[in-house]
């Protein structure tokens, strides 16, 4: 038996890599099946129209599958380890100011240039102009949109600071979130009705695809290095603050401006 072993080498590394790659591609394709089915069904059965430039659609789908696979691959080897190693490094350094400063910069920096936020801020300026809060000129509207963007970015920075501080202290998350809900409800009663829809939506648009994995890994990393913290109970929740706090800040912005 032993003498025959060298003739049959174990499956090579390239073969293993290829199989992993195929599995990742298959997973990405599976993630897209619902979207393909929904769009196909509504196009053919409900709207009863042919597919315009089918080959372009298929080419686009190949791009989407390859892109999603690379993204997932990069998450595991890049963003997750980076977020965790930074959490460990900050814990080892032991400087609260440095950690909270990092949390603020990460929240503010990633939000202020977020395309979804720029779009929402521009629409909000249109609303404000139409409702007569500000004079209906381009200069006024641009200034309003920029102020709103800074308000939301500040709020995301502040929420990561609060969220990181909560992990360090081990406060249960639901008191803070429910407290935030109470504030949102109370402020809704006093804010101008035109701003309410924008404020509620602003919570959802702030957390971009690049930021979420980093922030999640940072939170979980912190909760796993600090003694007495449970990664499941204390590590998650940073994103929740980042989607609640902008509502409060934008409602306040609407009441002041």
């Amino acid at each position, binding site marked *: 038996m032993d003498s025959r072993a060298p003739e049959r080498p174990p499956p090579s590394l390239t073969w293993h890599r290829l199989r992993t790659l195929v599995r990742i591609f298959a997973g990405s394709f599976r993630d897209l099946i619902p979207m393909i089915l929904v769009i196909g069904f509504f196009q053919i059965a409900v709207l009863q129209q042919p597919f315009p430039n089918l080959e372009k659609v298929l080419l686009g789908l190949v791009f989407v599958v390859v892109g999603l696979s690379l993204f997932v691959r990069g998450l595991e080897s890049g963003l997750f380890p980076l977020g965790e190693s930074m959490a460990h490094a900050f814990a080892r350094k032991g400087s609260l100011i440095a950690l909270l400063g990092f949390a603020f910069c990460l929240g503010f920096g990633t939000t202020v240039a977020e395309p979804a936020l720029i779009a929402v801020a521009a629409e909000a300026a249109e609303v404000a102009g139409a409702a007569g809060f500000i004079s209906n000129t381009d200069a006024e509207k641009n200034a309003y949109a920029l102020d709103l963007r800074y308000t939301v970015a500040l709020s995301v920075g502040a929420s990561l600071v609060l969220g990181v501080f909560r992990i360090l202290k081990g406060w249960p998350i639901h008191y803070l979130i429910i407290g935030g809900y109470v504030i949102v409800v109370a402020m809704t009663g006093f804010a101008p009705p035109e701003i309410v829809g924008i404020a*509620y939506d602003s919570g959802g648009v702030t957390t971009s695809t690049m930021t979420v994995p980093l922030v*999640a890994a940072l939170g979980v990393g912190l909760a796993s290095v600090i003694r007495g913290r449970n990664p499941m109970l204390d590590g998650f929740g940073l994103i929740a603050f980042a989607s609640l706090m902008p509502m409060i800040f934008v409602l306040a912005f609407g009441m002041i401006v």
Partner: protein
Amino acid sequence: MELISVAVSEILATLRDVAPIVVILLGFQFLVLRRRPPNLGRVAAGFGYVVVGLTLFLVGLDTALFPLGETMARQLTEGPAATLGGAEPDWRDYGWVYAFAAAIGFATTVAEPALIAVSLKAEEISGGAVDAWGLRIAVAVGVAVGVALGAFRIVTGTPLPLYIMVGYVVVVIQTVRTTRSIVPLAYDSGGVTTSTVTVPVVAALGLGLASTIPGRSPLIDGFGLIAFASLFPIMSVMGYAMIMTSIQRRRTVTTSEEKEIRE
């Protein structure tokens, strides 16, 4: 040619997205922490994968799915509105719109990269107790219900804060009743659902509805769908956890009963 110009603009958009993150990470790494991160080469390669992957993903969506989805949202909302002639709409005429809202909300959420990231992390941290695929399905169901209800709200013109407040009350009740360890993850899942894939299609749907229905202003009534899409996953994830716990409890009860019978 069109594909190339789309690709170039997407690469620029992704780089603009990534630039502040890279600056902040490098700045803190070298000025404050003053040490090389471990496996720098591997991490840098991973970062590269993420940037290239996200760019390809967006180029593909921009050429294949977004134009179709947006046209679809417009055509579906125009259909019933054409027969109105300025009258207040009957919400029952919009059946296909609700169906489309729910279906596209579900489908875009399943493909949302940020949600994939969080669900992978949750599965890893919980040691497999939270199933990544189950979590994503739960979130997608929440978004589906949220977007469909949001479409219904725009059609009927009922006030947004009312729905949100009722939603908050439900979330508070569920928070008290569900397993404690799922609560932070459930709160997080509200924020991660509305990113790259979901927002453009859902926003087009809201805008289409609000601009075709007489008496609705796209500027005021067009908002709110994203708020629904980030509130309802909180409920559906906690609901999913409650169902899973009760199934497990029943299973342990039946196995202990079986033991008793055997004994």
